[in-house]
């Protein structure tokens, strides 16, 4: 591709919340200054010229920007679509009406971590549940596509079924996505009491697999307990059957982002991903984004990561799952090992089993 298809943008570094597991705060290398409006609008024009198809506007909390409507107008003028990732607390009727009127919104994603304030607010702060649910109502009234992400952690692992009932039955969402509090940003500070233990992880997998069976096709995951349950079930079955290696197995192939997207931090720093803010490729409106995309050596190296064999790592030595393993996300790989080009211990099946974890029956193959 001559240009990224999509760009993840931290449109502001500021946030009205301080979630215990936030990847944005407490991250070395992360930018905490905001670009002014004019700089973003100039950058959006460049994205339009490059044929970028959509931007994901996150932060921080995007609705904190007083110029957010103006920024969306810039996205629309540049012939792109957009998504917004928000905690919902600051969404107004007026803003939802504006978003709906653009006709370009792929969705506004609101974080919901529990079926009630007592669960949701435990990691996200007092009052945040009310704001999130209220925002989902506003979006529904205005016909804006709604998305929800449930981040699974110590405080909500035993409330996932009730959370699914709230989202799918009561609030009428078509589906919701799941993830887990990962060893990134603020979560590193609170990891001991927040991240899932092995037992909790197993309970989360069991619960999410059951929810998926109850609501077929309405629970999604690209990482976290449900994704692990699915992937590990496939890997385990393949190993037991002595199946040939997966097409993408045995190498660091898990991350497809370097072929489709880039990230931009709040200060305009361009990086391969918001989870790798220390890998600065350049800066918006100073560097040619197309040139960075096509030629930057760090990005080229990041793409070459997919050719790196897992059996070259001491970490994977003797592992029977290597032919079926993709090495998982480079974000937690970096925060856990200090190396981007390393398999992530966070999603290692062998490690999970070694510390007493067991797989969940019924995981979708």
């Amino acid at each position, binding site marked *: 591709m*001559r240009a990224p298809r999509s760009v993840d943008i931290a449109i502001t570094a500021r946030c009205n919340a301080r979630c215990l597991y936030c990847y944005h705060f407490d991250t070395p290398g992360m930018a905490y200054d905001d670009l002014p409006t004019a700089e973003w609008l100039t950058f959006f024009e460049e994205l*339009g010229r490059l*044929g970028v*198809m959509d931007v994901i506007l996150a932060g921080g909390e995007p609705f904190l920007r007083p110029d957010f409507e103006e920024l969306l107008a810039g996205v629309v003028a540049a*012939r792109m679509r957009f998504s917004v990732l928000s905690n919902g607390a600051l969404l107004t009727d007026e803003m939802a009406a504006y978003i709906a009127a653009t006709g370009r919104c*792929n969705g506004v994603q609101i974080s919901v971590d529990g079926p009630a304030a007592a669960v949701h607010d435990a990691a996200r702060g007092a009052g945040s549940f009310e704001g999130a649910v209220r925002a989902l109502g506003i979006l529904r009234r205005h016909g804006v596509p709604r998305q929800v992400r449930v981040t699974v952690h110590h405080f909500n692992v035993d409330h996932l079924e009730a959370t699914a009932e709230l989202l799918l039955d009561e609030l009428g969402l078509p589906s919701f996505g799941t993830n887990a509090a990962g060893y990134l940003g603020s979560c590193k500070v609170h990891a001991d009491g927040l991240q899932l233990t092995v037992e909790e992880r197993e309970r989360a997998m069991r619960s999410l697999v059951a929810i998926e069976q109850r609501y077929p096709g309405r629970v999604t995951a690209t990482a976290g307990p449900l994704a692990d349950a699915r992937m590990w079930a496939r890997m385990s079955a393949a190993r037991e059957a002595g199946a040939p290696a997966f097409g993408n197995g045995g190498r660091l192939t898990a991350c497809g982002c370097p072929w489709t997207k880039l990230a931009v931090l709040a200060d305009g720093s361009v990086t391969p991903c918001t989870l790798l803010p220390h890998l600065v490729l350049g800066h918006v409106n100073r560097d040619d984004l197309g040139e960075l995309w096509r030629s930057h050596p760090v990005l080229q190296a990041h793409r070459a990561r997919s050719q790196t064999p897992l059996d070259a790592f001491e970490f994977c030595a003797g592992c029977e799952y290597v032919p079926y393993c993709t090495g998982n996300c480079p974000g937690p790989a970096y925060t856990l090992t200090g190396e981007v080009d390393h398999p992530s211990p966070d999603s290692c099946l062998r490690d999970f089993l070694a510390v007493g974890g067991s797989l969940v029956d019924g995981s979708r193959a």
Partner: protein
Amino acid sequence: MEPSDKVIANPVVVLREEFDDWAVLYNPDTAHAVGVNPTAVTVWKLLDGRRSVADVVRAAVGSYASVPEGAEADVESVLTRLVDEGFAGVEGAG
């Protein structure tokens, strides 16, 4: 479409050209995208609203040193599909 109809590219549609001369036409208003081959890219770039269908067919075919039999019909087919899928419009058509 009649040979005299003038076809114009939908101004909101984005042409994402790739390394191998193939491309993606993308309508951000509908999120509809379609992959197009180099010939269709050539046709797309001719849709300035001043050329008629016949002009576009002639110019597209003429831009290649040698063309297979039936190339004119293929170009017309591309034009029809672009119009049918909203990537282009016929000037003056309701």
